[in-house]
């Protein structure tokens, strides 16, 4: 089958210059191996994606045929007070969580990395546990904690003599978003901490030795070595936070369903209530809701582009 000459040649050379029977076989096998994934992908991602772009240009209640209405849904969004509110809340929620869930995990990771072998592993394990708990369990659990009459938080405040600090945490329009941000922080801290930790492990130790030789103190080493070397990882964490913020749904839906009176309405919950009609029992507005999903996708895409830009600059700066 294979001549001695052929055997001694490298794979790439043979592949480029001598299309053989084996080569053709490799091609068919390649397609055969990829085909199942492509079929599933086409059925449950590709086609739905194209379908939703089309639907966003139509008006449809789910029955009969969709009516093509062009850009009507999008112009309607601009004048929709609830949508504008949901957009604002989504952006604020995303901005605040991104800042908190980047700075705090970074500090914690640096702190853990600064010492103790065994204790460090224990801390990492514990801090990450909320990250494996589902959004539903998290949401229900914190709903009980925030319960105005019987919840642990208000009881705790009463016990330490801060009865005046008690609130209807999820019922107060001014407090509901901060209350949800706390829950998000509780759940996501560990994950982002781990990503930073992986980044810290990748820093070349000779950089610290060089800094020590130059007489840099701990703060200077942190400022001039650790933080700059974490730039790429920071870019990833920021992008993840942005994407997760824009697409927020589960935690808000479980805890408040966007209430009270849209005070915690995010794009995800608004789109869901429009499409699956849990708000007022009105007819589902499939086309209009789909337009909101396109907005969410656009925001997430923008986050990816931001990450590319940050990453590019970070790599350029380090070099």
């Amino acid at each position: 089958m294979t001549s001695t000459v052929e055997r001694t040649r490298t794979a790439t050379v043979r592949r480029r210059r001598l299309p053989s029977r084996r080569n053709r076989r490799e091609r068919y096998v390649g397609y055969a191996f990829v085909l199942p994934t492509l079929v599933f992908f086409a059925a449950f991602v590709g086609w739905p994606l194209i379908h939703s772009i089309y639907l966003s240009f139509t008006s449809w209640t789910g029955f009969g045929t969709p009516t093509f209405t062009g850009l009507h849904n999008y112009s309607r969004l601009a004048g929709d007070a609830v949508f504008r509110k949901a957009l604002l809340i989504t952006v604020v929620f995303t901005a605040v969580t991104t800042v908190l869930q980047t700075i705090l995990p970074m500090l914690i990771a640096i702190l853990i990395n600064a010492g103790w072998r065994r204790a460090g592993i224990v801390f990492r394990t514990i801090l990450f546990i909320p990250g494996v708990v589902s959004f539903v369990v998290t949401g229900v659990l914190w709903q009980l904690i925030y319960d105005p009459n019987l919840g642990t938080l208000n009881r705790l405040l009463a016990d330490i003599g801060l009865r005046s600090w008690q609130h209807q945490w999820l019922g107060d329009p001014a407090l509901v978003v901060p209350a949800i941000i706390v829950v998000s922080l509780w759940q996501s801290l560990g994950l982002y901490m781990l990503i930073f930790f992986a980044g810290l492990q990748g820093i070349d130790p000779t950089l610290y030795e060089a800094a020590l030789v130059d007489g840099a103190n701990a703060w200077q080493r942190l400022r001039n070595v650790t933080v700059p070397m974490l730039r790429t990882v920071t870019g990833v964490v920021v992008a993840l936070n942005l994407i997760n913020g824009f697409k927020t749904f589960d935690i808000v839906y479980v805890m408040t369903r966007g209430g009270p009176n849209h005070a915690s309405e995010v794009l995800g919950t608004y789109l869901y209530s429009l499409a699956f009609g849990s708000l007022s029992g009105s007819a589902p507005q499939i086309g209009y809701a789909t337009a909101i999903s396109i907005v969410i996708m656009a925001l997430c895409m923008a986050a990816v582009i931001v990450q590319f830009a940050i990453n590019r600059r970070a790599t350029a700066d380090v070099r």
Partner: protein
Amino acid sequence: MSGETTLQPLRTPDPLRPGAAAHRPHHDRRQTGFRSAGFVVLLVLAVVMVFPLLWMVLTSLRSSNTVFGGPFIPTQFTVSAYREAWHTIHFGSHFLNSLVITSLTVVGTLALATLSGYAFAMLRFPLRNTLYFVLLSTLMMPASALIIPLYLQLKSLNLLDTRQGLVLLYIGSAAPFAMFLMRAFFETLPMELVEAARVDGAGEFRVFWRVMMPLARPGIATVVIFQFLATWNEFLYANTVIQTTGRLPLQPMLFTLVGQYSTNWPALTAALTMSVLPVILVYVRMQRQFVAGMTLGAVKN
């Protein structure tokens, strides 16, 4: 999508092993002070992080008449709430639903991902890069943004309100990312092994199955663990696709309890505890793969 950055975590050292490359700070006296202060900070933080879960378990062990009031750590424990959750909520059958749905999804995703990941990493065929890019380009697509067309898709396939439909949907949406993980893993294996096996006369499938798959075990473990967690915890699709109460997996089932059982906190927290237990056990037992899967998976979720 974000090529270099997403690939990176695979090559960075294991976050759970402060290994060779770890920075070992030189200790001076001032730093010892820093370190003990840091230790206290971390200790407080760990307590705060664990508190809600601890509270959940403690509440589930109270009897319904002592749940409000009384000391934080109850003087008497009872498992009656677990018995109640098991019987009246039919916890067992929803647990089984979750288990079956999750297992089928993991197996299906793994089958697709190992085949296609291997092909994209090791085989040369026309349009290879185009197809790979198409699969990857949708990784950032948020689940909530696709829920409407996916719902319609299942409806048109007559699979709405079926567990099979949910499994197919899960496999379809998870396959590209799992493929990406497997491809990255296969790329770390030497191409020479494939060549050598071919020279020895092994067919393409045999090379894949007998030579490469055994070597891919760590990568497979990562995909399995990550997919298990993601599917077990998934809520949005499950809640939308399944309507018949008896077919609901755990997460949407727990969600429906909020209204019905909002006065029976022990039963509610008992159900929550039982649903979290498997995940935490798997996490503590298989931390390394878990963390690898999560840090990589974070790119998608």
